[in-house]
Structures are given as structure tokens and as C-alpha cells.
């Protein structure tokens, strides 16, 4: 009972912050829209891939990007929480560390999921039509991806002492995860060095899975994509829980 209420408290806080800081949501959706409208629109006037317009082709990739950025940043944000004493207040509560981690993780994942949903709605403008099954599958992929990446952010954030490391994380983790994922190009016929990185990037399987769910074309079977992504998520959640247990 106590743990459940504690979990609810942490989630409730994230929801309040999410709904109150509207500028954050707007700015987090603005960059993906630029990618779709400008980059996708510009290149799409000349290129079509996998039987669809380039703009539509990168749409699942840009949804993934939206979730990637907001999830990792959500996790990193606890560096701030640690700096101000707010997080100490949570750590000193008579709550299990697993509960604290779960509350943060689910709160952040729902944030990211809501942003992913906003992007899905924008898809209608692009002329994407969804089946009920497509929406369910997209949801599952987005949620598992978000939980994995929020956990990743929390792992880094809980081990990082200052915000100076942010830029490093962005340059050497977030951008590579995005660029190698095949969000912007098909992963068929890649040169071997690129293929290796792409295969190692867990985000690849989210992009491919979402492409399968929304556009009906994917490199790997959807189930395989989902299995790999889920395994990655389980690993991240496990390491994240462990990191939180060690937090002082």
C-alpha cells in the first residue's frame, strides 16, 4: 500500500510538471515537425522510398526521434533534481528504491508517449491512415522504447554529478542512436560498417517496428523487432533499478 502510494506520488508529480510546463512540450514537438515538414518535404519532392513518399517514409523515424530526445532528457533531468535538494526529499522517504525508480520511469515514459501520440495525430495531416491494429502496435512500440530510453537517461543522470556532461551525452549517445537507427534511410543494402552500427543500435528496431506498424513495410518481422526492443528495455530497467539502489 505504502509503496503503491509512493509510486503514485512520483507519477503524479511528473504529470503535474508535464501539464504545467507547456513551453517544454511545444518546443519538444517543434524540432520533429521541422524535420518532417522541411527536411522530409524538401527531399520528398525528389525522392520516394519503399513505395512511399520520403516525407511519409521518415515519419515513423521522426516519431522515434521525438521519443528518443524527450526520454533521454527526462532521465538526465534528475541531475538537476540532485543539485537542488528536491531529490533528497524523495530519497529520504521510507520508500523502496525500486519504487522510486519505477515512479520516475513510468512518469517519464508517459510524458514521452503523449508526445509520440501528438506526432501520430500529425501523421493524419501527412495523409497517413491508421488501422486500429496499427495504433495498438505503435503504442506498444512507443511505450517500450520510451521506458528503455527513460531508464537509460536515469542511469546516466544518476551517475552524473554535473550538467556539464549533458553536451557529451547528446553528441556521443543521443545523436548516434538517432542517426544509426535508419530513421532517415532504409537499412537495406547498407555498406557493412554502417550496417554493423545500425544493427547494434537498439533504436533501429523501434524505427523498423513502427514503420511496419504504421506503413506496413519493415525490414525485420514486427515480432522480432518487438522482442529485441523489449529485451533492451528489460536490461535498461534492470540496470536503472540497480543504479537507483546505489544512489546516495
Amino acid at each position, binding site marked *: *500500500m*505504502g509503496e503503491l*502510494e*509512493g509510486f*503514485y*506520488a*512520483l507519477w*503524479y*508529480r511528473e504529470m*503535474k*510538471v508535464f501539464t*504545467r*510546463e507547456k513551453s517544454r512540450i511545444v518546443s519538444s514537438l517543434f524540432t520533429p515537425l521541422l524535420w518532417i515538414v522541411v527536411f522530409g518535404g524538401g527531399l520528398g519532392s525528389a525522392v520516394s522510398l519503399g513505395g512511399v513518399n520520403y516525407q511519409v517514409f521518415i515519419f515513423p523515424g521522426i516519431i522515434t526521434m521525438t521519443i528518443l530526445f524527450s526520454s533521454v532528457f527526462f532521465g538526465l533531468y534528475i541531475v538537476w533534481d540532485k543539485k*537542488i*535538494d*528536491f531529490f*533528497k*526529499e*524523495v*530519497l*529520504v*522517504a*521510507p*520508500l523502496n528504491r525500486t519504487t522510486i525508480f519505477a515512479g520516475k520511469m513510468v512518469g517519464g515514459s508517459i510524458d514521452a508517449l503523449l508526445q509520440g501520440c501528438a506526432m501520430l495525430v500529425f501523421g493524419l495531416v501527412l495523409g497517413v491512415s491508421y488501422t486500429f491494429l496499427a495504433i495498438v502496435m505503435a503504442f506498444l512500440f512507443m511505450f517500450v522504447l520510451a521506458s528503455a530510453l527513460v531508464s537509460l537517461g536515469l542511469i546516466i543522470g544518476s551517475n552524473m554529478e554535473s550538467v556539464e556532461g549533458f553536451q557529451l551525452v547528446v553528441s556521443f549517445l543521443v545523436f548516434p542512436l538517432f542517426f544509426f537507427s535508419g530513421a532517415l534511410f532504409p537499412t537495406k543494402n547498407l555498406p557493412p560498417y554502417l550496417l554493423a552500427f545500425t544493427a547494434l543500435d537498439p533504436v533501429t528496431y523501434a524505427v523498423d517496428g513502427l514503420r511496419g506498424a504504421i506503413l506496413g513495410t519493415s525490414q525485420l518481422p514486427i515480432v522480432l523487432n518487438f522482442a529485441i526492443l523489449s529485451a533492451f528495455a528489460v536490461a535498461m530497467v534492470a540496470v536503472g533499478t540497480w543504479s537507483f539502489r546505489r544512489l*546516495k
Partner: protein
Amino acid sequence: MVCAVETEKLTKHYGDLVAVDSLDLSIKEGEIFGLLGPNGAGKTTTLSMLATLLKPTFGTARVNGYDVRTQSDLVRQSIGIVFQDPSSDDVLTGRENLYLHALMFGVPKSDRDNRMKHVLQLVDLQDRADDIVKKYSGGMRRRLELARGLLHNPRVLFLDEPTLGLDPQTREHIWDYIENLVKEEKVTVIVTTHYMDEADQLCDRVAIIDHGKIVALDAPSVLKANVGGDIIRLRTRKPKLESLKEMDYVHSIDQSGSTLSLTVENASAHLQEILGHVGEVDSVEVRSATLNDVFLKFTGHEIREESGEGGVFERIAKARSGR
């Protein structure tokens, strides 16, 4: 005697640095107990160990009868903490901050509304409870944090530098609130501070800490009496010390440059005579002993010398209040 907090050789090492050195303390139920010392003396480290945020290197402590090493959950449930830095969530309202705390600290649902109302009243925030904390002043945030620390009916409340960074008027208000809640809630309060006036006015007993060790522990009035009288400060160019040394009511003489500091029993009665013997004097200052004098007596240096970031402001504040 019932002890709210008892420590036994409580020690914390950070590598080679001994932050807290074999601390033996026993704090009675219902008192306001102060840990006074410069920054880096080990006050916050001690507090963190008592609150189970840090594991002691050696020794142990019992808080409300629970061992901080083995019963940390029980300790946490029975204490409240107000941290040094603001720890309320400034995106939320005051009431939401309290609500979250109630959930996390397991305040039963049936009690929640009553307790929240009660603690808001204790710190006079009932009218501003639904404002976002960002709009609060520094003093209001502190009060909210006090209220939050009390919300789950803790038996011991830890306050880490409760008035750090607040203006003098607000500080006195916060002291009033603290004194009031001790009366109303029958809670034991443990305060760390490097403000001598805070320790003096607020605390029933004070432990003076330097380099992780207790150098003196008693009621502020007893500690001050220990100094052996009042302080007379003279500015004089050619002091005649011989005759002063013969006076039996002059307990200590300390000369640095042109400033002469004397510890004198019942200074006002003997001032005339001292001035008569010391020679030509530029200025005189007579004051009662403060905890700073106590600190100086036991450690040989002043609290201010090491007080880091707060130092400059304190010196300015002191210069102003000294005139």
C-alpha cells in the same frame, strides 16, 4: 531520561578526511538541540548519518530507539528533515508539495486533509497554499518546508541550516515558527547552524563542533558563562599591560595590533578603573560574551574564519550590527 537521539562513537571518513570523529551525543526528547560550527565542521554529515542518508564508517546511532544502520526504514518514518537548500518543488503548489509528501511518507488517507490543514496553519500559509511555489518568497518556502517536515507526525525534526540565506527579519520569524511548533507538536528538533545568534536564541542546548569533534556542549547561557565574563575591546596605541595583569577580575588579555581584547568579570563595574590604567584610548566597546567567544576560547579561532561562501556576507552583517 528518554533519548530521542543517541550516538556512540559515530564516525565518518571520506578517504583520508575524517569528517565526523567519534561523536558521542545524547539528545533528550522535546529539546531544541543545536550543532554549531563553521562550514565543513561535519554538521551536515552528522545529520545525514542520523537521517540514514549516509552510512557511518564506524560507530552507530539510535534515533527514536531505532538503529540507523539496521532499521533505516523505521528511522525514516519517525523523522522529518528540512534540507539546507530549497527542496520544495517549485512547479507545484504548496498544497501539492504537501500532498506528495503525505503519499510518500505513508500518512493514512483519513488523516491527510486534517494534517495538511494543520501544518499549513502552523506556518501561516493557509492563504497561499494553492499558489505555485515559484511565487513564494525565500521565507515562505522555508515555512512550507518546515510544514512538510512535520506533516507525517515525526518525533524528531532535523533542520539543516534553517535560515541560511534569509534576511535578518525573516530569520527571526522562522525561529518563532520553530519554537511554536516544538510547543504544539511536542517534537524534538535538531538544528545545524553556523550562525551563533541562531544557536543562542533558538537552542536549549548547543554542541559546538570543530573538525568533526565536539569541543563544548551545554546550554548557551552556561557556555557563555564559561568564557568568564564580558568582553571589553579597546583600541589603544601604547597599552600598559602590567597593571591590567594584576587585576583579578581581568581573566584574559589578548592583543592583536592596536586592538586589545579583555575578558572581564562584570565589565561595566570595572570599566572606569581599567580605562584609568590602560593609558590613552581611542575607542572602547563593551559587550556580553557570545557563542563566538566560546568557540574562540575552545578552538583558538573564530567561526567566521572558515565559513566559506557565507563568510563575506556575515562579515558585512557583523560590521553593520556592530556600529
